């Protein structure tokens, strides 16, 4: 598996990019040239310079430093959201797909209702209900997304349960534990990895959107979406302030999308290994 991963150029490139971004975020205090919150009113809207590599914003804060610190909430929240979603979704999906009967009925009906609301509206509703704050953004995103995962995992479980190799295991009385751990979980996990990496991109966009609207991460904390919100007000005078975070989001989301496609290839057992 590792061999195949290392041979896949896109997979290696995207994973390293994401890791690099994550590391920069983690070690932000050592890497960022300036304090992201320190204002320097005299130097506001400064162009590129040695001191401010990407210039400064409307309050004279270093843009690069804010970008670097912004990785923490942007990427961190997205990853947290996906972890929460997968845990909840996988639990529900496995419960439904495995135990069947009334447990399945109840879970799947709840999923049906959840999926009857467009996700965007649901996020706003939950944020409205719980109030504007960072953890509520995560809760809202997990809340609307888990149903997708629950349904996907249940379908996966059902499919694999009806595959001939599981039927064989059941025929000869292999313990359920073996069927679950050796047959079902690995097959579903690889599907899950692909979906999850595609959805991290989705989560980044979603969280930054909330921050942009002022419903997520609050100023002055640097977050890419929130930075774009600030940039909106000074769009005429200082468009660079809007370009940098936007491109950063596009690059990061693209990386996750590409990573999803690459993982699909890498994790497919039918790809002939050389």
């Amino acid at each position, binding site marked *: 598996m590792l061999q195949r991963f290392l041979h896949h150029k896109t997979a290696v490139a995207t994973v390293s990019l994401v890791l690099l971004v994550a590391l920069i975020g983690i070690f932000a205090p050592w890497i960022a040239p300036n304090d992201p919150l320190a204002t320097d009113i005299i130097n506001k809207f400064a162009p590129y310079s040695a001191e401010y590599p990407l210039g400064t914003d409307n309050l004279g804060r270093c843009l690069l430093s804010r970008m670097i610190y912004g990785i923490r909430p942007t990427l961190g929240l997205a990853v947290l959201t996906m972890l929460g979603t997968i845990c909840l979704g996988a639990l529900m999906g496995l419960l439904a797909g495995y135990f069947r009967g009334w447990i399945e009925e109840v879970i799947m009906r709840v999923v049906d209702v959840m999926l009857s609301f*467009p996700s965007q*509206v649901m996020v706003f509703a939950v944020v409205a209900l719980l109030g504007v704050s960072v953890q509520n953004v995560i809760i809202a995103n997990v809340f609307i997304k888990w149903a997708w995962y629950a349904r996907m995992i249940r379908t996966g479980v059902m499919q694999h349960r009806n595959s001939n190799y599981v039927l064989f295991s059941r025929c000869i009385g292999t313990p359920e534990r073996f069927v679950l751990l050796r047959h079902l979980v690995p097959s579903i996990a690889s599907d899950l990895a692909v979906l999850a990496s595609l959805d991290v991109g989705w989560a980044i966009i979603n969280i930054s959107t909330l921050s942009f609207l002022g419903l997520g991460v609050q100023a002055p904390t640097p977050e890419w979406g929130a930075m774009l919100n600030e940039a909106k007000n000074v769009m005429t005078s200082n468009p660079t302030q809007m370009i940098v975070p936007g491109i950063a989001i596009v690059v990061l989301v693209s990386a996750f*999308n590409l990573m999803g496609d690459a993982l699909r290839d890498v994790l497919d057992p039918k790809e002939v290994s050389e």
Partner: protein
Amino acid sequence: MKQYIIKRLLTAIPLLLCISFVCFVFINLIPSDPAEVALRVRQVPIITDEAIAEVRAELGLDKPYLVRYLTWLVNCLKGDFGISYVNPSRTVAGELLRCLPATLRLAGASFILVILLSLPIGFFCAVYKDSWFDRIMRGIIFITTAMPAYWVGLLLMWSVSIKLDLLPTSGSGSWRHLILPACTVSLSYIATFIRLIRNNMLENMKQDYVLYANVRGLPQKSILVKHILKNSMHTCIVALGMSIPQLISGTIVVENVFAWPGLGTLCISSIFNRDYPVIQTYVLLIGVLFVMFNLLFDILQSLADPRLRKEAA
């Protein structure tokens, strides 16, 4: 067939009830007491316990949950969604109706844009697979799926309105105001649908019936239009139809960027003002629309497909 339609309609009812119940529970989960909120809204200077109890009785909050739900539901069916917390002189229904036309205009324009652009582009991408056109479109699609809608809006506003000074930056009024928001809303949907149509057509091209049409020596144009396109259209039309409520809800963000006076702007300002009845009704509205459109296009699809249509023996 009739029975199938009746059955689908009947199954939609419990789903609609569930949705309405979720919406009802939603407002009751709010940490603040609705009676207290109501008093504050009415700008009662001193909030006493007696006053709260009075309002509770007035709003029917002292009754059991289920009774309250049923009263609420009946009121909803009558078109009475309560009164705005922020502006007691206005009903929720009135507020929504005031903003609805603007949103419908935006969603409608976006929908037309989506259809006009994604159908031909998807078609040509599939027909000329791996040509330069297809490659460029795939590249554009890849980038646009990674772009947040609000950023696209900002970019368009900056380049078209500010730099080129071609169109107004925000607000509504003339059709010129409509162009940028509609483009922004439709952009991500166009990408999705181009991909859908392209993949669907490519999938259909691999089918046996296309090989057999070729074997019979039918002209390429007839195979593409009469057979492949029509078969792919079936799935795509359904997907397009089901995306209408999503388009309507998808305007939230873009409306805020362009200060478009629609439901989305209303929704966000309600969230900031904690005007819960408005949010509740908005969620209910979108949920019901979603179910209705799903149902409608499901039935339409089964009517259009001879395999699903049960012929009278």
